[in-house]
């Protein structure tokens, strides 16, 4: 009677172990002599304690423990084998739990206490997420890491299926370390203290519908919640014109879940929470598409001043105003970036990029992005091979004699880097249309001339001209306006 029993030893770090025992039946707290010895200790180590708990080294193989309860001079000897020692890792400590309300994401940071253990051990972490006033378990996730004999701060993100504002979210964590060389029993650590991100339903002054004015992709599932003031009740919650069944999160927060959301109208889909006092709270959801990869990206220059890039946008995003799809043209060689003004309503997409001094080749990336996603297309182009001159202007005709004339026209642009090929179309009532090709060095915002012979005297002719790059043909300019001229009599 009264002797020590149920001796148990637990280690948290594989070096020291905490041994505890019972004394039955429970006796007044007396002084105890505690001695232990192992094969590699010359003499037993003894000390007095009033506690029924001591910390001693973990033995290589076994320890002999002698516990003497002085008040009744009862002595009990225990043999502790290493295999009987229980290894429970230290309870993890959450360093930080940070919410990102815009993405409904929680970021968890904790220390792996790796310095307590030899290098290279596998650690398994269980992270539990709880929610609502009733702290219901939402999910439990397993995370693996390797210990490195240093204290490493681990980080983990979790995205909630509902806005963090809706109700409080709680997180706790525990770990299991797979110490293969430790022959004793191994168990999970205790759960860490719970960390909480309070919902808006815990703040008396807060109310509203969440998420506030967000953008999602078509087909998304979205949870909305209505946080209302104490004493108010929700009569119904609707998405668009359709009421939805409500899920209670707390006394001040109810949610609805919209599945497979379809594209919203231009002004978004209203989510309305009607309260029993007749008032309404609400939010707007914008449902659209991520931008498609721009197709048929093509760039050309009309005048060696500007490069015009065009492309096919693909499926409309269904997002407008400040949520519309935005375009930018980035040129890798120069590092220059241009944002493009694009009218979402018209289908044609054009973006201008300045011709840069002494640069012929352009390595373009057309970047496309909207709140749902982004895409890009690239194009490497030598602009001397992509000349699409503007329409020739101010075509004039002057006469040399009754069978030869002089044509003069102007092209807006700087073509000094290339030769131009121009076609002069000659029409008259009498004969078939003729095309006269003429090539000339390009000029800088200059006029061009050509000489036509072998015309018939006293004949009415119509002339028009178009031009293109001579060496690397890309596109003809449009035809100039027609200029009429009647040759003089012979």
């Amino acid at each position, binding site marked *: 009677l009264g002797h020590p029993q149920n001796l148990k030893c637990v280690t948290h770090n594989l070096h020291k172990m905490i041994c505890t025992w019972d004394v039955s039946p429970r006796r007044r707290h007396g002084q105890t002599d505690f001695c232990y010895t192992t094969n590699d200790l010359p003499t037993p180590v003894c000390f007095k304690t009033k506690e029924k708990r001591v910390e001693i080294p973990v033995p290589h193989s076994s320890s002999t423990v002698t516990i003497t309860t002085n008040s009744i001079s009862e002595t009990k000897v225990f043999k502790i084998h290493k295999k009987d020692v229980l290894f429970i890792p230290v309870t993890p400590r959450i360093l930080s739990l940070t919410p990102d309300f815009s993405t409904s994401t929680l970021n968890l940071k904790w220390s792996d206490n790796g310095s307590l253990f030899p290098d290279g051990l596998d650690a398994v972490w269980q992270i539990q997420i709880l929610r609502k006033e009733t702290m219901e378990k939402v999910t439990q996730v397993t995370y693996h890491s390797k210990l490195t004999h240093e204290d490493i701060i681990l980080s983990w993100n979790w995205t909630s299926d509902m806005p963090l504002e809706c109700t409080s979210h709680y997180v706790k964590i525990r770990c299991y370390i797979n110490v293969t060389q430790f022959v004793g029993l191994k168990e999970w650590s205790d759960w860490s203290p719970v960390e909480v991100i309070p919902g808006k339903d815990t703040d008396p002054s807060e109310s509203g*519908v969440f998420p*506030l*004015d967000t953008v999602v992709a078509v087909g998304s599932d979205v949870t909305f919640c209505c946080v209302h003031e104490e004493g108010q009740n929700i009569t119904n919650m609707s998405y668009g014109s359709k009421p939805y069944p409500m899920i209670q999160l707390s006394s001040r927060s109810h949610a609805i879940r919209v599945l497979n959301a379809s594209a919203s109208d231009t*002004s978004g889909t209203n989510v*309305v929470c009607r309260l029993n006092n007749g*008032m*309404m709270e609400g*939010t*707007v959801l914008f449902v659209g598409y991520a931008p498609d990869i721009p197709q048929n990206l093509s760039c050309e220059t009309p005048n060696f001043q500007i490069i015009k890039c065009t492309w096919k946008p693909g499926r409309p995003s269904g997002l407008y105003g400040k949520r519309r799809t935005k375009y930018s043209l980035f040129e890798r060689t120069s590092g220059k970036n241009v944002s493009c003004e694009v009218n*979402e309503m018209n289908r044609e997409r054009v973006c201008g990029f300045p011709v840069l001094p002494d640069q012929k080749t352009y390595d373009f990336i057309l970047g496309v992005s909207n709140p749902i996603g982004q895409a890009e297309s690239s194009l490497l182009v030598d602009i001397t091979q992509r000349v699409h001159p503007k329409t020739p202007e101010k075509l004039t005709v002057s006469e040399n004699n009754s069978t030869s004339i002089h044509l003069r026209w102007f092209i807006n642009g700087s073509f000094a880097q290339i030769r131009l090929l121009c076609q002069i179309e000659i029409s008259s009532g009498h004969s078939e249309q003729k095309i006269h090709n003429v090539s000339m060095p390009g000029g800088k915002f200059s006029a061009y001339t050509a000489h036509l012979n072998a015309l018939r005297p006293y004949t009415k002719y119509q002339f028009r001209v178009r031009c293109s790059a001579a060496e690397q043909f890309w596109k003809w300019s449009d035809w100039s306006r027609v200029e009429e001229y009647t040759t003089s009599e012979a």
Partner: protein
Amino acid sequence: MAGADSPSAALRRHDLCARGIRLAGKMRSDVLDLLDTYVEQQGLDASASVAAVEGVPPAAVERWDEQTGTQRLLENLAAYRAFRSLLAQMLEEQQEQLGEADATLGRALAAVLLQVSAFAYHLEELLRLESRGPPSEEEDRPPPQPQGLFEQKLRGLGVLRELAQWAVRSARDLRQLAKPSPGASSSPSPAESP
């Protein structure tokens, strides 16, 4: 109004009142059309109840018939100056939120804004007739920023509804002003002390 009028001033006031009444009538019908477009375009429920919108002067007034002509004009002018700034903000918000996606609503809003500005100028003309002139414009305090888009939509609904009410009230006020009866005259301004 300004004590005994000279015949030309009375005629001028009557003419301004008559034109103001027509302007108010046109404005009201355009605002009602705009309301329909707005409700549909913003996905709202036409019967939605909207709390009083901060910054929007209520059209309803107690003891309407006891108001002097000057009070009527001053209250009307304050209201339409407020509506001018609210509608300008709505137009800006509409451009930011929808861009080119809904030019119809944008054009309708701009048209009503133009009418409101014209009506405010018209009221200033009437006040000038009183040789006291309209009060100087206070620095347009930007209307309070709603918390979210839905609240913004409801506020727009509230502004347009109230503006439609004001158009009715303005027509009544101007008819009252147009009457030659003394009841329509204002308290004597210092210059006119009998």
